[in-house]
């Protein structure tokens, strides 16, 4: 075979009718590379794979496999260069595994000839690479889901193509079989210099098992490079619309991502979804359950004033909530109070969490007072204020004033949710146009 990268796409555009599935894609993959294709559903991963297989017509551009234009290769010649493990290949008939894998030799056989010793050797190699050497004589339907996926891999390997395309190969597998499957693929690439392109939804598996991650979004390539460079929190926010936390596995330097919430919460019938902002006054770990409830409901939420070492502050950061934070044990500074008041002024409802009140954060409670009667204010009454008043009664006094002014007490986050829902769905909640400025 001639020189050139294992796969090169130049200016490739693919359309389904009016819809453009791949747009101006340029991509070059070297021999022996293991590349993950990542991107949300509908981003063009499967389209790209099907285009490389020659199953879809290109609207524009060209594809070369090992330096040869795909368009100039016959179907049989393509099969000797590119093999494919499709998404959930369904063998419906109970074929003997060895026969099933033998099907992969089709492109290497002369028309209407029987199987040769080279075919049998290739089948044996494929079986052992897939870890199925001892199952060769069994019917394919007697295999487990994980084994069947490996059987599909073996069928593709029997094609002995230098380029292997995998479409979501692990999506139906349990975590053990996921690791096993991708570990085998990785080993194949290393030992037989097979080039692998795999569409993977699981970014953590992509980071762990591939040399390079190509990210597609709406048919365009938006990122390309080694996983540690490509898989950033910012990318997840932009491409998947997910707020995630990125950590680095210290032993290997491999990044892994913990998804936290959607940037744009789903807007269902729930009046709270997308409603807000709801400003939560918290601190001392007391606001956690409230923040989680609001995040689950999809309400837009702000928080203040929190203590830097506080678990509420950590959670607010993980959830990506705009928050006002003060250094620990210091009295609230003027700047911080102003910032908090801005969030309070922007809020459509205020929730006062069950935080312990001391002299340093009494202002947190007091600053809510001007808003009582103007917008709905909710006061946590469990545990009661008397039990967490460390100011010698001044906090209790402020709390009672808020209550007398029209604030509504609540016992549990669930009760708060119900009350907020009726506000959001009621006449007060509806007419005000959505304020999205806090997200930016």
């Amino acid at each position, binding site marked *: 075979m001639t020189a050139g990268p294992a796969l090169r796409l130049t200016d490739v555009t693919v359309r389904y009718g009016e819809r453009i599935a791949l747009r101006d894609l340029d991509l070059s993959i070297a021999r022996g590379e293991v590349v993950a294709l990542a991107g949300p559903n509908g981003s063009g991963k499967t389209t790209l794979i099907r285009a490389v297989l020659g199953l879809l017509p290109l609207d524009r551009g060209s594809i070369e496999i090992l330096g040869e234009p795909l368009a100039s290769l016959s*179907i*049989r010649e393509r099969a000797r260069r590119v093999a494919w493990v499709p998404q959930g290949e369904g*063998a419906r008939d109970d074929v003997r595994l060895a026969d099933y894998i033998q*099907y992969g030799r*089709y492109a290497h056989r002369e028309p209407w000839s029987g199987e040769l010793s080279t075919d049998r050797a290739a089948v044996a190699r494929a079986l052992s690479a897939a870890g199925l*050497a001892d199952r*060769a004589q069994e019917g394919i339907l007697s295999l487990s889901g994980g084994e069947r996926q490996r059987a599909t891999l073996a*069928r593709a390997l029997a094609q002995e193509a230098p380029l292997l395309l995998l479409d979501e190969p692990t999506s139906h597998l349990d975590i053990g079989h996921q690791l096993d499957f991708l570990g085998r693929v990785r080993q194949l690439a290393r030992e037989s210099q097979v080039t692998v392109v795999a569409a993977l939804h699981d970014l953590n598996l992509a980071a762990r098992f591939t040399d390079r991650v190509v990210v597609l979004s709406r048919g365009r390539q938006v990122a390309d490079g080694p996983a540690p460079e490509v898989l950033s929190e910012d990318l997840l926010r932009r491409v998947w619309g997910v707020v995630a936390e990125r950590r680095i596995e210290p032993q290997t330097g491999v990044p892994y991502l913990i998804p936290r919430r959607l940037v744009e919460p789903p807007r269902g019938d729930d009046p709270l979804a997308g409603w807000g902002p709801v400003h939560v006054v918290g601190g001392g770990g007391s606001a956690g359950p409230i923040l989680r409830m609001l995040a689950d409901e999809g309400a837009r939420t702000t928080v203040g004033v929190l203590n830097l070492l506080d678990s509420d502050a950590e959670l607010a950061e993980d959830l990506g909530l705009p928050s006002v934070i003060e250094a620990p044990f210091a009295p609230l500074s003027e700047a911080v109070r102003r910032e908090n008041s801005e969030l309070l002024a922007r809020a459509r409802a205020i929730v006062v969490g069950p935080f312990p009140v001391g002299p340093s954060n009494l202002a947190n409670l007091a600053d809510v007072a001007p808003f009582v009667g103007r917008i709905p204010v909710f006061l946590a009454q469990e545990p009661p204020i008397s039990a967490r008043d460390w100011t010698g009664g001044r906090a209790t006094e402020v709390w009672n004033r808020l209550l007398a002014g029209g604030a509504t007490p609540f016992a549990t986050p669930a009760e708060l949710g119900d009350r907020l829902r009726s506000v959001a769905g009621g006449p007060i909640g509806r007419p005000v146009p959505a304020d999205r400025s806090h997200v930016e």
Partner: protein
Amino acid sequence: MGGDVASARGASEPKRRLGRAWRLAIAVAILGLLAVLVSPLIGPVPIPAEVVLRVLFGSAHPCAGYVSSAYSCSAARVIVWEVRVPEILLALIAGAALGISGAGLQGIFRNPLADPFLLGISSGATLGASVVLVFQVGIREANLVLPLFAFLGASGTGGVVVLLARNRYGSVETLLLGGVAIASFLSAADALMLLYNPALSLQVDYWLLGGLGSASWSVDAIATSLVVAFGTVLSLYGPELNLIQLGNDVAQSAGVSTNRVRVIVILLASVVTAAAVAFTGIIGFVGLVSPHVIRRTVGTDYRIVLGGSAITGATFLLVARDISILAFPSSVLPIGIFTAFAGVPFFLYLLLRQSRVTAMGAGS
């Protein structure tokens, strides 16, 4: 190393399955052979077995020792050689044709309900026959002209469907729907034609029901050469059909020119079916059932299913002929009626047995 030990262990189960499959295959073959041997003895005209055998083995005086008023001895010779043997041969050829094209089409469409008449081939044949009967085209030579027109109608319909199949990215579903639409169109055209000559519709109906009555050595020669030539080519498409069972895209990624294979298989199945139907009329159920019998017993490898379905179809049609004569000796029952009567209960039995096995398998 470890694999060798393990494969020896794993081999016992399929070996048993294989053994069962071979026993069944041998049983079918023996049944077929038996049918071939017994069939000449069976016919509407009662002729003693010994006379038939003497005729077959070329005895100079086959009727020696038998006195019969029902027929002359020369008639016995004619009946055996010019009626029964050609009829048996036609039953075998037509059954094989229907069996193999049913298998081919079920494979191409990945649909167990596909049969040789799926794509409107029967409508095409009927239209061809109606044209001859209504317009009296070459009616003097009806024995040859009618089959010719039926053949042209049937294979022509297959050709039109194949034109539909040539769209490279077209789906199998499009093709199926196209075939069904064409069948409806041809049936409508046929009905319109017969409207002008309602008396003929009975004749067309009778032809439709199918029978072996037109068998003769010349008919057999034509049918056999067509069916053997095109059927043999069709029987070689096992590897392609095996891959197509995994999906057209998978087959293509493994090197099968699915579009070309689709066109070729449909065309071959059409010609093979047309060659049989032109002489026998529409014989239902043989093409549908035979591939199922093979798949459910011997296995799903199309390298075996194609040829196996031909053998099963041939046996089925011949046995159907024998039983229909034995059951209704005085009237010549159209064999198409009989294949359905005999085939449907057997088919239902197979289906029910299979679903029970599947249900048990799913539970384990």
